[in-house]
């Protein structure tokens, strides 16, 4: 899958967690970048792991996350930026 823009990364991520967002009472179309997926009950730590491996599968690349802060993974906008940065690099 060819992904170029940050909007495309965001839409991929939202797509992958749409069900979890809805179940936690959030509208995937309107959810803001600042939402913390862990604290708001959308994902737990293993849910986050499966999101990461889904993103890796879809983009065909392994994400290097050892330098990421917990918030870089938990907050939607920051997670998307992590993914973009790795595609750019």
């Amino acid at each position, binding site marked *: 899958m060819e992904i170029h823009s940050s909007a495309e990364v965001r839409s991929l991520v939202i797509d992958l967690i749409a069900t979890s967002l809805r179940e936690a009472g959030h509208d995937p179309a309107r959810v803001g970048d600042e939402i913390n997926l862990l*604290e708001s*009950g959308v994902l737990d730590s*293993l849910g986050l792991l499966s999101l990461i491996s889904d993103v890796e599968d879809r983009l065909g690349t392994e994400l290097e996350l050892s330098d990421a802060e917990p918030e870089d993974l938990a907050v939607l906008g920051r997670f998307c930026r992590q993914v973009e940065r790795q595609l750019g690099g």
Partner: protein
Amino acid sequence: MKVAVDLLAAFIRSSERHPHRIAARTPSGSVTYAELRRRSMSLAATLDRRAPADPPLTCSLGGRTPTAYAGILAALYRGHGYLPLSTSHPAARNAEVLSRTGCAAIVADELGARQLIELVGRLEQRPTLVVPDLVDPTELREHASGCAVIGGDELESGEAAVDRETEAASLAYLLFTSGSTGTPKGVMVSHDNVTSFVSSILARYDFSEGDVFLQSSELTFDLSVFPVWVAWAVGGCVLWPSATQMIKPGSTLRREGVTVSLVVPSVGRVMLKLGDLEPGSLPSLRYALFCGEALPVEVARGWSRAAPGATIENLYGPTEATVACTAHTWRPEDDEEEEAGVVPIGRPFPGMDCLVVDASLREVPSGEVGELIVAGPQVALGYFQDPERTAACFPVPPGRSERFYRTGDLVRRTSAQGPLVYVGRSDHQVKIRGHRVELGEIEAALRRASASSIRAVALPWPRTASGADGVVAFVEADGVVASVLRRALRDHLPDYMIPTEIRFLPGFPSTPNGKVDRRRLEQLLEEAHGNPQLC
């Protein structure tokens, strides 16, 4: 009978010795021993005045806050057992537990107070609600007609609290775990049980007031008993990080100088994957302890590289035997004791008796697989209001005079004196991310949610060395909408019990004796997940 050292007495002693030391650090602030004691006594005095003394149970409902801790301490100050409930569980499930226990006194932090608004209408009783973090509880009061609601401005001062003698056999806490019939089981743990556990831990390790203990789980999970009560017994500090910090806890452990960690191995697996166990990255850690599910050797190895100075131990125990009752010290060079890539669960704590038995509860020869049954001072009182289940799960085996708890865990003794090795579960119970789950409870919830007499099967999937990462459900029906079912389940089950996938089949495969062929369903999953087009 008076207990020599009980939980509360130990906390009070520490608070007298170290009033200004930090007793707990949480995402919403830290609290000193003196302050935590003052707040707990104030809550206890308020409840003593405003809530009935019976039943002898005080609930602490909340998130990761000093108030949640003050709530459990207040229960003990009242001579009550504590009933911890978490706001991360659905309001309907918490309401069900509260209704079943008839609990008449609830302490709630700010998040807890928010959940009470939704929850209180579903209760059969009208409990007293103490919400110390709310200055203005008007909104809650509007929803809680018939309940006394006491806000932060209306608390009694703590001086009215009286020191009570604690009966050894009385309830210290009541924890609800997943139950096979669809209703959670309440495990009643006495002061005697938990005193015995804490004493064994204090004898085993050299903990002191300089130690910082990681609390990696909610108060509803009995692993929390270790960091909380052991830290407070030695005058140390409990650190309760946020859910976000716990994804990659490495930086938190370093920053906060954690010296003792007790986590479920799943946490370690996530850390390995996210590169959070760099060699030498946890220099302050003295003890890296694991409990709650099978410990894969690769996780032990990862922690040992990250914390080369730490002692690594695998603890084992069901809630019914009070947190942990066996332990095994793992060393990187001890490869020969591993079995199927998991670390042994070791040998029983002093005073605890572990037998490996067959179906008639007679011991099997060493080397053979059997069910682990345990006896001794840590074996719990039984299940709350469930004498039948208690009798079935806590039998006196032939030729013995003591009650044993049937763990349902299959183990093997490597040699007559060797450590016990965990082999698997003997029933339909499984560890999902470290939480003990009865698959039957998920199946019952699916049947309830579909409001028809469908058949439903929950299977642990994908399986891991320590249990499973999630659950996949099969439902024998057409015309049921998965999203509707999942939404209904969300109201009743905690996150880790919600199926990641629900599959519909027109009919279930059967075994020769007419039971659902679970193995065949599992094969369907293996085939489907091996073929991406069916995923």
